């Protein structure tokens, strides 16, 4: 059975994929749907969803269009999720690959360094980093990347350790390929599957982390994000639930979709595990 078929057999993964495609479509089409800034004070504050055709999802505490906020927030959330995951992979994969392949003292040093980051509570560390660097898009991406790379390093190290004594790797050593070349061309390509699965889940947790930071008021103050919308509306939850609820729902669906897709990818890329489910 091909990977694609295995993915398709997981109904949850399909639902997740559909949600994700919709979300990406919204993010891409956003600027044409809502060309003006989501911060504009366009209507009366506290209008409920469907109360007025112009604002299908209502308005917030200052009279900003919540639908516009959600659409623009989708772009920011996806962007931050993807970029910070890429950055943390760029740190985690080399560290893990070197540690796993070289072993010995290098392994010890790199793993102690990794554990140093792993032992600090990640959310607290992210808050500290953002607070020190001043909240902005860049500082948030940096903070998320710094707290998310250690699990990647550990995963890649484990994979590389099991791969490096395989015959084809030993053969490459025998024909005299250089170490970097062996790592890049022989070892790493075989670790791609677990990294892809982990990456998809990391995008989800990055989106959650960014939302939590924004909720606490540590988001980029010039970007409309879902976490900011939840945070700004939470004090009015009793009389204007939709201000917080709708962006909260958007976060929930996005994270759910990414997790479902991640699981589907796991089934598709790890056929031995997937077979166990049949």
């Amino acid at each position, binding site marked *: 059975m091909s990977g694609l078929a295995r993915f398709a057999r997981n109904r949850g993964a399909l639902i997740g994929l559909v949600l994700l495609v919709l979300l990406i479509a919204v993010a891409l089409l956003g600027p044409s749907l809502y060309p003006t*800034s989501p*911060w504009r004070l366009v209507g009366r504050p506290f209008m409920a969803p469907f109360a007025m055709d112009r604002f299908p999802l209502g308005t917030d505490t200052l009279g900003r269009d919540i639908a516009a906020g959600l659409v623009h927030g989708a772009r920011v959330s996806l962007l931050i999720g993807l970029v910070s995951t890429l950055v943390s992979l760029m740190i985690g994969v080399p560290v893990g690959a070197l540690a796993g392949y070289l072993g010995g003292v290098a392994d010890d040093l790199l793993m102690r360094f990794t554990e140093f980051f792993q032992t600090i509570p990640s959310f607290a560390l992210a808050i500290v980093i953002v607070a020190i660097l001043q909240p902005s898009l860049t500082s948030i991406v940096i903070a998320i990347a710094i707290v998310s790379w250690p699990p990647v390093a550990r995963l890649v190290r484990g994979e590389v350790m099991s791969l490096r004594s395989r015959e084809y790797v030993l053969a490459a050593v025998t024909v005299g390929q250089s170490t970097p070349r062996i790592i890049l061309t022989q070892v790493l390509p075989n670790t791609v599957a677990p990294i892809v699965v982990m990456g998809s889940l990391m995008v989800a947790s990055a989106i959650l982390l960014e939302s939590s930071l924004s909720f606490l008021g540590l988001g980029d*103050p*010039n970007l409309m994000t879902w976490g900011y919308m939840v945070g*700004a509306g939470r*004090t009015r939850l009793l009389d204007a639930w939709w201000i917080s609820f709708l962006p909260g729902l958007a976060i929930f669906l996005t994270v759910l979709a990414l997790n479902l897709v991640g699981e589907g990818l796991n089934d598709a890329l790890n056929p031995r595990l997937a077979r166990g489910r049949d």
Partner: protein
Amino acid sequence: MPSLRIATAAAFVSLLALGSSAGWAQAPKRGGTVHAIVTPEPPMLMQGLSQTGPTNMVAGNIYESLLRFDEKLNPQPSLARSWEVTDGAKVYTFKLQPNVKWHDGKPFSAEDVVFTLDKFLREVHPRWRPIANAQVEKIEQLDAETVRITLKQPFGPLLFAMEVASAPIVPKHVYEGTDYKANPMNNTPIGTGPFKLKEWKRGSYIHLVRNEDYWIKDKPALDEVFWQIIPDAASRAVAYETGKVDVLTGGSVDIFDVPRLAQLPNTCVTTKGWEMFAPHAWITVNHRNGILGNKQFRQGLMHAIDREFGKDVVWNGYGKIPTGPISSKTKFYSDDVKKYDYDVKKARDLIKQSGYKGETIKFLALPYGETWTRWAEAVKQNFAEVGVNLEIVTTDVPGWVQKTSDWDFDLTFNFLYQLGDPAIGVSRSYVSSNIAKGNPFGNVGGYSNPEADKFFADAAVAATEAERQTLYTKVQQILAEDLPVLWLLEMDFPTIHRCNVKNLVTTAIGVNDGFRDAWKE
């Protein structure tokens, strides 16, 4: 049918409220306990040594000064039963109340007043010290009930300096010859006021009890006042809803919670009792940074800000739009100045003429909670409508204090107390002699206009009220033209209390000295 039951209860309670307001003149009832909020927890209760808001709120009921002020800022007797200004407004003679006792039973006399003003406060009080050193020639005791202050030149605001936070009278027998700041008695304040400190359970409450020997017979009416300390605004609102506290002092709950709490049965809301402070909110402009030094540009910005929106939506309708540097609640206010209505077209024209090229201006957000954040977002949108790019920069409270004190900002919010008289609370933000790093409440924007400096200086020492008014009107006209800062709101801090707590807010400082006359039905 719970909703019907609630409606009936509400109707019943409002009938009760009507009944009691009809009989407003009834005599105060003795006895009772009131729970009020103080937030944050005061650092200490020795009012001469600490001028923080929470200290004043509690200690103003323990200590007294020579004068109190009514809601129109007219001086009223307190420890001084009468006073006289003679010799070209240079000699102030205060006659003191007889039979006043300190909380430890010792008699109070003119010696205590002279010691307080001439020794104690001159050494420790940041607002009295400059007045005592620059304006006062001598402070002397004429007899046990008379004190005379002689000035070097007329100084109009002197009486305002006799308010309890500015000049609380402290006991000479406790402090004379000691290291004032290290005196162990600072933990158990001894005043002459209507209430004594019984217990202070840190992090929980401050318990005041009636002063049985108070110099006004039959006052205070209440037996006890508990100042509850609850660290979170939402929990404070809940404490009121559940009946744990009776008084939510100004600023203790978020402004957007006020309309909801005001709907509760037996609940009264008042914005009075802040006339002495008259908090004035504005956008501080750093004149050193490029286009911000351009008057036309600032005028354009002022026309661009929808200040009514800020008041009605961000501040839930509380407050008033200011016309200039002096609050309409403060003495010597004049509205005979240039006005700036919300006018996008005029704003665009002025900004275009100023030569603004679209450079990004940074707005340092004031980290005092959500309402201020929303306000910054609204201002940013107002500016965007006229093509001015604003980037909001967030920070924490120490960060804000440091950046503002070091002039490291383009624009930021600030709000200052006016303290009754422009010479005390207004001029400090605009005169060039107050351009100094290290204090966020000085003239941090660097505005400098020798003409305004001169009018401010002359007005402070002019002999008559009429002369002072003329000079302050001129200053207001100059500043409204120059716009050293962008005035946004005369802020209101509503006090929410149970309607059966009567006479709580009767002075210009509200609950800060309100428990002397308060009573509970």
